[in-house]
């Protein structure tokens, strides 16, 4: 396959940045999208140019490092797939592909396609923990968990924090991520002691980071590589309403 790539190049956080066109020939349809970028980078290095910086780590779709806006789709055209797991067979020979970083005020570009997702860490730090005695593993049956709750919590826990929800959201909101991180704990008995301080703290951290507000447009869940359902945000809303009714505006510690 021969492809034309239009890639966002930005030297550093202060640089204005621009789309630059590259030609990549002899791409195998069996390559992953990131391998295709590796091929481009090897050629750029041989030619003495600066390679394109992009985030990646496990390349197995579970670490949440990779994240590219490919032709206006977060993680590309295939649903439920991270950019590293996307194969070039999803594209056709001769196609022009636009590759951009996630766009959000809370995710400033560090270089080229790499963005700083510390805002997510701040949200997790604001409430993504439980209080539990450490030491030997507890007896598994000592704390019963309803199967439906265990399943829903697991669904939320599948979030890899890649940021695709923010990238796709027309409001630049990180509510699906925040909701996943809130509900993976609030649905389980172990998460109850901090349930209400957690939701207030995490939503406050979300808003302080400069994310937009959720309008239930539903774009996030479509691009989510882990398929976190939209109703997760409803669970967060319910906890938030209960928390503000119960505790006023006491944030998490």
């Amino acid at each position: 396959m021969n492809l034309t790539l239009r890639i966002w190049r930005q030297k550093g956080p202060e640089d204005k940045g621009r789309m630059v066109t590259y030609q990549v020939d002899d791409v195998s349809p069996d390559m992953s999208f990131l391998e295709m970028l590796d091929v481009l980078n090897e050629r750029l290095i041989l030619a003495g140019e600066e390679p394109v910086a992009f985030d990646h780590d496990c390349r197995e779709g579970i670490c949440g490092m990779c994240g590219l806006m490919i032709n206006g789709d977060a993680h590309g055209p295939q649903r439920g797939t991270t950019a590293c797991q996307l194969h070039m067979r999803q594209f056709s020979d001769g196609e022009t592909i636009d590759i951009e970083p996630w766009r959000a005020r809370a995710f400033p570009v560090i270089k080229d396609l790499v963005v700083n997702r510390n805002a997510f860490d701040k949200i997790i730090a604001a409430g993504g923990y439980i209080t539990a005695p450490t030491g030997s593993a507890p007896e598994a049956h000592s704390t019963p968990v309803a199967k439906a709750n265990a399943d829903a919590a697991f669904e939320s826990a599948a979030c890899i924090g890649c940021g695709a929800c923010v990238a796709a959201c027309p409001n630049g909101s990180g509510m699906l991520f925040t909701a996943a991180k809130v509900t993976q704990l609030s649905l389980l008995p172990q998460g109850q002691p901090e349930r209400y301080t957690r939701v207030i703290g995490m939503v406050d951290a979300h808003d302080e980071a400069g994310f937009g507000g959720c309008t239930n447009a539903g774009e996030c869940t479509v691009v989510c590589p882990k398929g976190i359902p939209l109703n997760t945000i409803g669970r967060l809303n319910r906890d938030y309403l209960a928390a503000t009714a119960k505790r006023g505006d006491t944030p998490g510690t």
Partner: protein
Amino acid sequence: MAVTGLLLVLFLVAHMLGNLKVFTGETSFDHYAHWLRDIGTPLLPHTWYLWIQRTVLTVAVVAHIVAATVLARRARAARPVKYAHRKKVQGSYAARTMRWGGVIILLFVIYHILDLTTGHLNPQGDASNPYGNVVADFAPERWYVTLFYTLAVVTVGFHLRHGAFSAFRSLGQQTPKGERRARTGALVLAVALCAGYLVVPFAVLTGLVS
């Protein structure tokens, strides 16, 4: 957004049911319109109830617009650098037209009040004969008025299709099954309100009500 929106939906339902009184004849419809001014009497003086309702609705509309503006400004601030290649929102048409649809609805409401409440833009504009005002308003030669009403009502329908679902979600609707119900309910509500509102101008246009 959710609380003020649901309050406005309640008004829309009541208003639509009142409109349908037009099919019960001129005397009945005019009597209904005058009765609206006497709700709560003798506890409340004449038209007091109406003014209380108008105040509540105005506060709800203003709060709704303020909340929408805050959300829109936050959304704009949250993405300072736009995408060079941006697909259309994959969610519903209703969801992505909420903001501009809302602006259209606001303009329509202003026109509608000047037309059928104060009568300034109505060809008859007789406060004692609302039935006649309606018939004069949607007369066949004033087809453009009917067209504008139709477009505005359909815009309200789209606004409600996303808005009603979104309101339930904001108030804590949290299960996938409930989401399907809320979406279906919002669609049914939107279609029912559209039909209920449009049947009146079209009845006048076709001569069913004259």
